[in-house]
Each structure stands twice: as C-alpha cells, then as structure tokens.
C-alpha cells in the first residue's frame, strides 16, 4: 500500500526544485528586460493617472512623443506599445493597464502588417508577460497566444532567448541584481533620460535621432519594397480582439480610437488594394463603435508628411514623431470638440493626385539572347509622369555613361557587348521638374 502523503510530499518537492532550477536558468540566461519591462514598470508605478494611452506595437512606441502630446493637451500621455505585438498581446496588455490606470482615451495604432498579424511571437510574449503583475492575465495571455511548438518557449524562455556568451551572462546577472534595475523607476530615472536624443526616453517612448545612421530612411536602392502586393481582409481573430478591446474600454469608461500613423508613401502605393483594405478597417471599426483615422490620407492642413520624417519603412524618427505628435494633438482636440473630421482626409482619387513626386523607383531585368531587357517601375502619384534614365558605370574604371537618356518609356534593351563587369543605375524624375529636383535612383550590378 502506498504512503500517499509521502508520495504527494515528494512530488511537491520535486516540482519545487524543478521550478527553482528553471527560475535560476531564466535569471542567469534570459537577457535583462528591455523597453517592455521599463514601460510596464512605469505604468504600474505611475500614481498620477494616465489620461491618454497609445497602445499597439512599435508604432505606438516610436511614432508618438508623449511629452509633446502631454504638453499640448495638458494631460498625462503615455506610450504603451510593445514591439511586434499582435492584437492578442495588445488586448492583454490593455487589461493589465486598466488594473492600474483609468485613461479617458486609448488610441490603438496599426498598419496593414499589424492588422494581418495573428500570431503572437514567443519573443514578444517573453518580453511582456513576465512583467505583468496579474497572474490570471498572464495565464490567459499564455493560453490565448500559444500554439503548438511555442508552449515550452513561453514557460521556459531560456530555451531560445539567452545571452550570447559567458561575459554577457555575468553582466546579465550583475545587471539584474543592481538596485537601479530592480527598483526601476526610481525618482529621477525618467527625468534623467527624457532629453536623450536617441533610445528610450521614458513614458514608453523610444526616440530615433534623424542624424543617427538608423534614424533616416533612404528612398534610393530599396529593392525590398519594389513590388506590388495585395493585402487580405483583417483576420477574424484580430476583429475578435479588437472587439474585446472596445468592450474593455467601454467597461472602463474609456474611449477607444483606432489610427494608422503615417508611413512612407511607397508603402501605401505598393498595396494595390490599399483603399479597399482601408475601407475594410473603417467598416470593422464602425461596426464596433470605434473611431478610425488613417493619417496616411490626412490633408496637409493637419499633417504634411516629408521624406525625412522616417527612420525606416514603418516608423517615424524623432523629427517626424515631433511633428506628428503636434498634429495628432491638434486633431484629438478637434475630435474632443465634436468637429466633423472627415473633411481633413483625402479620398482615393485626391490622395493619389496629391502625390506629386516619385517615392521610389527600381528596375527589373532579364537576359534575352545577347541583349538585356530592362523595365523601370516606381511608386508615384496619379498626376505624375515619370522620366527614366539609364546610366552604366564600369566597375573597373568607375566611368559613368548615359546609355539611355530620360524618357517616359520604362523599357530599354541593351547589348552589353564589350562590358564584362558593370552596374546599371536607373534615375527617375518627374516630367516637368527641374534637373536635379527629387531624383530617385536604383542601382544593380549586372552579371
């Protein structure tokens, strides 16, 4: 006959030791919490109620300067975005927020990528969940976001998310034991960083200095986005979580607004069904009683997008975020005053006509016998007629030769006889523009 009490006791001790070992491995191996930890800690610690919160993925983290918004609207604004977070994670993060704060307004940022994203990556979960205080929230978040193959990753983050070497391990442990890390945010911690030009500056905002090499988007030689695509409708799963967020806000007497922050023009133009998608989002938001505003279609009277506002193809740099935050604040004031805001947005036809430049250009090529056939393409407005010029650069001598001057014809056939190693550059400009005015280029080595 088994002594079940002894067996039960042994099982408990075995499990306890198991969890202690696992905790130890997490403590030593899993890198110190990054921005997500700081954001959650600040949110938990803020004793002055947060009035306006920006939720979502990194668009909220980087595109909106809460200091500017707070100053303009005379309230406490906070960025509560977590990089690569899907709607599932945003919902549970919002649930956590409402346990500690009662914002009057919650603004959810999204673009067509985040709207399609239904899988919450393990790394995103690991970055956020450990710093949530509510056990039930964490557990629900775990089961809602996990799928086969990721259950173990989330319970045992040290499986894949680890420091790189022994030195990092030592520094990691030291860092985690440091009082300033443990007690973040202490008095003065946020003030110490808020004026930094780059990096985390407190209140959930990550600044990207446009003068930094990672702070300014280049519009030339972008092969990555040189194709057109179609986006699907918002997945049902995301509609479901959007609905849950709307209900949660309603329960907490908070207004939920959905916005698409500005993106580089080519990201809008590359999506052939962008406006259908936008209508889709608008309809879904309307059905759920959520206001929706797409700042890519906003008129210049509210916000005029400039090329140098962007750090990369998805996010604003600090210059762009500052301008946008000002504009957004004014916009929210108008919204608060009950003004009809539809007049500030372009429709499809007007939007395309308003783009009077070439956002990006590129070419595709293929060998056709002895000749090479080039076809130029680009993203530009409907009132723009692009002119394309082809230039050959001999990679040995560096000599550049215009092999086809500016023409509206995107096609060009070239016989490379006599050239072994060379680059072809495509220059694209708007017909009727001055010679060096806003020329976009794309270059490729042809073998």
């Amino acid at each position, binding site marked *: 006959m*088994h002594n079940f009490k002894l067996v039960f006791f*042994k099982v408990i001790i075995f499990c306890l*030791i198991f969890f202690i070992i696992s905790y130890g491995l997490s403590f030593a191996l899993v890198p110190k919490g990054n921005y997500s930890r700081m954001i959650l800690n600040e949110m938990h610690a803020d004793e002055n109620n947060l009035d306006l919160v920006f939720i979502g993925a990194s668009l909220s983290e980087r595109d909106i300067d809460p200091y500017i918004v707070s100053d303009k609207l005379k309230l406490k604004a906070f960025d509560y975005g977590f990089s690569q977070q899907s709607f599932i994670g945003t919902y549970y993060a919002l649930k956590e927020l409402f346990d500690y704060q009662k914002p009057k307004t919650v603004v959810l940022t999204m673009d067509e990528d985040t709207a399609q994203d239904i899988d919450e990556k393990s790394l995103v979960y690991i970055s956020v969940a450990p710093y949530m205080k509510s056990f039930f929230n964490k557990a629900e978040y775990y089961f809602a976001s*996990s799928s*086969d193959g990721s*259950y*173990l990753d989330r319970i045992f983050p*040290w499986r894949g998310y680890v420091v790189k070497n022994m030195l990092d391990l030592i520094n990691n442990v030291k860092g985690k034991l440091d009082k300033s890390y443990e007690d973040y945010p202490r008095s003065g911690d946020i003030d110490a960083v808020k004026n930094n030009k780059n990096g985390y500056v407190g209140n959930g905002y990550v600044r990207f200095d446009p003068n930094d090499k990672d702070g300014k988007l280049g519009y030339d030689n972008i092969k990555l986005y040189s194709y057109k695509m179609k986006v699907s409708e918002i997945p049902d799963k995301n509609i479901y979580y959007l609905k849950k967020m709307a209900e949660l806000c309603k329960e907490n007497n908070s207004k939920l607004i959905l916005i698409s922050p500005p993106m580089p023009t080519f990201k809008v133009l590359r999506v052939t069904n962008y406006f259908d998608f936008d209508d889709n989002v608008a309809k879904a938001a309307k059905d759920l009683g959520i206001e929706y505003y797409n700042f890519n279609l906003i008129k210049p009277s509210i916000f005029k997008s400039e090329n140098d506002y962007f750090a990369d193809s998805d996010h604003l740099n600090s210059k762009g975020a500052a301008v946008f935050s000002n504009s957004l604040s004014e916009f929210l004031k108008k919204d608060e005053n009950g003004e009809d805001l539809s007049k500030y947005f372009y429709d499809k036809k007007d939007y395309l006509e308003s783009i009077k430049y070439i956002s990006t250009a590129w070419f595709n090529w293929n060998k056709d016998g002895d000749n090479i056939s080039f076809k130029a393409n680009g993203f530009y407005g409907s009132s723009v007629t692009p002119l394309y010029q082809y230039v050959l650069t001999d990679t040995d001598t560096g000599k550049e030769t215009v092999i086809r001057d500016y023409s509206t014809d995107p096609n060009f056939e070239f016989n490379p006889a006599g050239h072994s190693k060379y680059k072809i550059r495509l220059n694209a400009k708007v017909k009727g523009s001055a010679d060096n005015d806003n020329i976009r280029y794309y270059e490729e080595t042809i073998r």
Partner: protein
Amino acid sequence: MSFLQFKFWIFICVLILLYYLLPKKFQWVCLLIGSYVFYALAGINTMGYILFTTVTVWVGALFISKLHLNMKKNLKENKDSLTLENKKGIKALTKKRQRIIFLCVLLINFGILGFLKYFNFISKNITDLLGIIERHNIDPFQLKLLLPLGISFYTFQSIGYLIDVYNGKYEAERNLFKFALFVSFFPQIVQGPINRFDSLAVQLYERHNFDLRKFEYGIQLILWGLFKKMVIADRAVAFINETFNNYGKYGGAITVVSILLYSLEQYADFSGGIDVAAGIAELLGISMAINFKRPYFSTSLGEFWRRWHITLGAWMRDYIFYPLALSKKMGKLSKLTGKHLGKRAGKIIPVAISNIVVFLVVGIWHGANWHYVVWGLYNGIILAFSSILEPFYEWLKKITKVNCENFSYHVFRIIRTFLIVNLGWYFDRAGRLQTSIYLLKNTFLNFRINELFDGTIYKLGLKDTDFTILFIATLILFLVSVMQENGLRIRAFLSEQNLVFRWIVLYIIIFMIISFDASSENLFGGFMYAQF
C-alpha cells in the same frame, strides 16, 4: 492530435484522473470514450473507417466463433449417431462457412486499406503505362483520399484478431464495446505497437489499482521517448530533409552522412513514439508489446528484423510467413526442389520465397511508391540469399580460420549488418526510385569528401551547436542501449538508487528535453510512422 501537442497532455491528465477516480468497473469504459475522443480530435471526418473495421471484424469473428461452437455442440450431441464420414463432413462444411466469412471480412477491410493507400499509385502507374503504349501523356485519374489515422495499425491488429479466432486460438469477444476498445486504444493507434488480443485485451478490461511503481516507470519511459523524439529525431530531420529534397546539389559524402543521420532519426522517432505510447499505457496499468530491442546491435539482417518494429515482424511471421511457408503448394515445391537440388535446397527454397514475399508486403505497406517495393525486395532477397549462401560462409570461415566467438568478430557482424541496413535506407528514404539510384551512384562515383570539411555541412539545417547536441544525445542513447544490451534493466536499476541520484537523472533528462527540443522548429506533422 499527437503526443507532441499541449492539448494532448491536458487530455491525458484528465483521462488518468477519471480513470483512477471512477469505480473500477468503468475503467475500460473510460478508456473507450477517451480513445474515441482522441480519435475524433485527430480527425472526426475519418472516424467512420475505424468504426466500420471494428464492427465488421467483430461481427465476422462472432459468426466464426458461433459456427465453431455450433459444430462442437452438434458433434457432442450426436456423437453416437454420426459416422466418421458425417463428422468429417460437418467439420468441412463449418470450415467452409467460416472461410467465406473470414475471407469476406478480410477482403473488405484490406480492400479499404488498399484503396485508400494505393488507388492513386495504381491509377498513375496504369496511366503511365498507357501513355507509353499510346505515346502521349495521359493525366492520371486521382482521388483526394484522406488516410485515416493509424489505419494500417488498427487494420492489422483487427485482422490478426480475426485470424486467431478463425484458427481457433480463442473465442470471439462478445462485447462490441470491449472489442472497440481493443481496436481503438489510443496510445497504440498513432504508430503501434500492433498488439495481440490475447495479451492486451485482458489488461484493457480488468480493473487496475493505482500502482505507483508502474506509474513512475511510465513517466520515465515517456520522458525517454520524448528525449529520443524531440532532442535527437527532430534535430536530425532538418539535415536529412535538406539533403534529400536537394540531392542534386551534394556529393556522396553528404549523402552518407544524411543516411547515417536517417538511421538515427528513424530509430529515435519511431522507438521514441513507441516509448511514449507504452509509457502512457503504463500510467494506466497496461503493458503493451515491446516493439524495439536495440536493432542496431543486430549481428544479421534477420536478427535486425526481429529487433526492429517487432510487432509488425511478428504479425508478418505469424499471418503471412508461416501460412505461406507451411502451405500445401510450398510443400510441393519443397519436394520438387529437394528432389532436383538436394534436401537442403528443399528446406531453404520455400523459406527464401516466403521471406521475399513477406518483405515485398512490408515494402508495399510502407507506402505507395516503387522505392518502397524495391526496399522490401532488397531486404527479402538478402535474407533469402543469406540462408542459401550459408554453406559458403561456413567454408569461408573455415579456410580463413576466423574465430567467430570473440568480441571483434561480434563487432564486425554488427557493423556489417549496420552497413547492409543503411544501404537499404537509400531506397526507403528517397522520394523516388530514380533518386535512390542516383544517390547510390553519387555515393560511389562522386564522393566529394571535401564537402565534409569546407563548411557545407553547416549549411544544411544544422549549426555546429546542433551537431554537438546530437552527438551528446546519441552518446547517451548509445550508452543506455549498451547497458540494456548487457542485461541491465534501466528503470529497475534507477529505482534501486538513492533519491538524490534518481532525481538528478530525471532533472537532467527533463531539462535536456526542454532545452534541446527541436520539435518546435521542425514540427513536420508529428511522428513519421503516424502516416502509415
């Protein structure tokens, strides 16, 4: 639903709780419902097939049993009035009726299996042949057929039961639901083992008290199975898939490494899955048939197939090999060959032919593709010829004065068998017969050994850390296998050690599984034999 899914372990926890909390007379009912819930979650669309097999085999066996009982009753009641001729006639008539029922049930169920597995293959081959004759391409007629989970395993298991009842080994099970449990018992349904009714059924229906020792053993076996599957098999598979899917890119050296890894992966995957299944059964107090016995320690191909997928081999032996080898036709052949080629030939030829037939069936069972057929024939022919050439081997040993009793000769035999088996894997793993031949040619004529040292090997899905993990895990597997081969019963040995030692071993295995699990990266639909 597979053993690698989170919801499966939730299902197991709930099932075990209910199993031991419910009154013991309902334990088998709990298992039956659990098995069907498992099957439904795995694919409710195909549940009709397992139900059909269960009902037809049960009805068929019942009728066969009833005929037998009626015959016995008739003979007993009329033993004084019946002549010898009458009695023979009654027996012959009963046997004839039994045979009709038996053949009907057999053909229907194997017919379904054959249709689902081989219709598209046969259709394509007929179409290709017609295309060759008529000298133009013809599109083959293909059906979108869904293969029910474990159809090969439960069909073989059910038909094995039917054959045993037909042969009078035991009476048919009268309770349909109890029989349904035997067919659908969920740990075995995914990839076996193919259990026998007389050994499994008793355990399924009897009442089980909670046995702590068996429960501990079950958990240890599950952990061991998961270690083999998640750390070894799912890690190695990335390399194997890359090289076989892009075989034209690599030389023979890479192919050899891939085949060796396939050797390891196949064993770890299959035996790992069986260990998990057996471990789960042990949690319920049930012992299933052993299916693997360290096959790579075999000293001959025959021994290999008595150690690898043991239950399939036993099924083939009992239900195909013996009936064929001991049939009247084989008897006549034996006499004929004995007369013309000598007594020894008379004994060996029927056995050799039966072996070839068995392995042809095994090859076909593996899948609807010619490379499996060739693989089966390869094994059958080698087995056939090994017995035919036995006198030659004896003569060779004699003239070379080889000492066959020492350790080095034993190792030689193991390595020789390993090489023969691995040569066979060329036909098993490759997607097409042409690919197998290409790979073999590549191995011998285009080795490119430099690819092992120039960094190519680290671009095929495995980094150097993966190779290190694989090496350590394989070493652990090898050491455990050596201990078992030398008669050490690992779990019993472990249970005799002090608590601290036992727990350290368990923690090491558990943390190795969690840390080095590659299944999330290479989740190729679960266990490889679940497709059969």
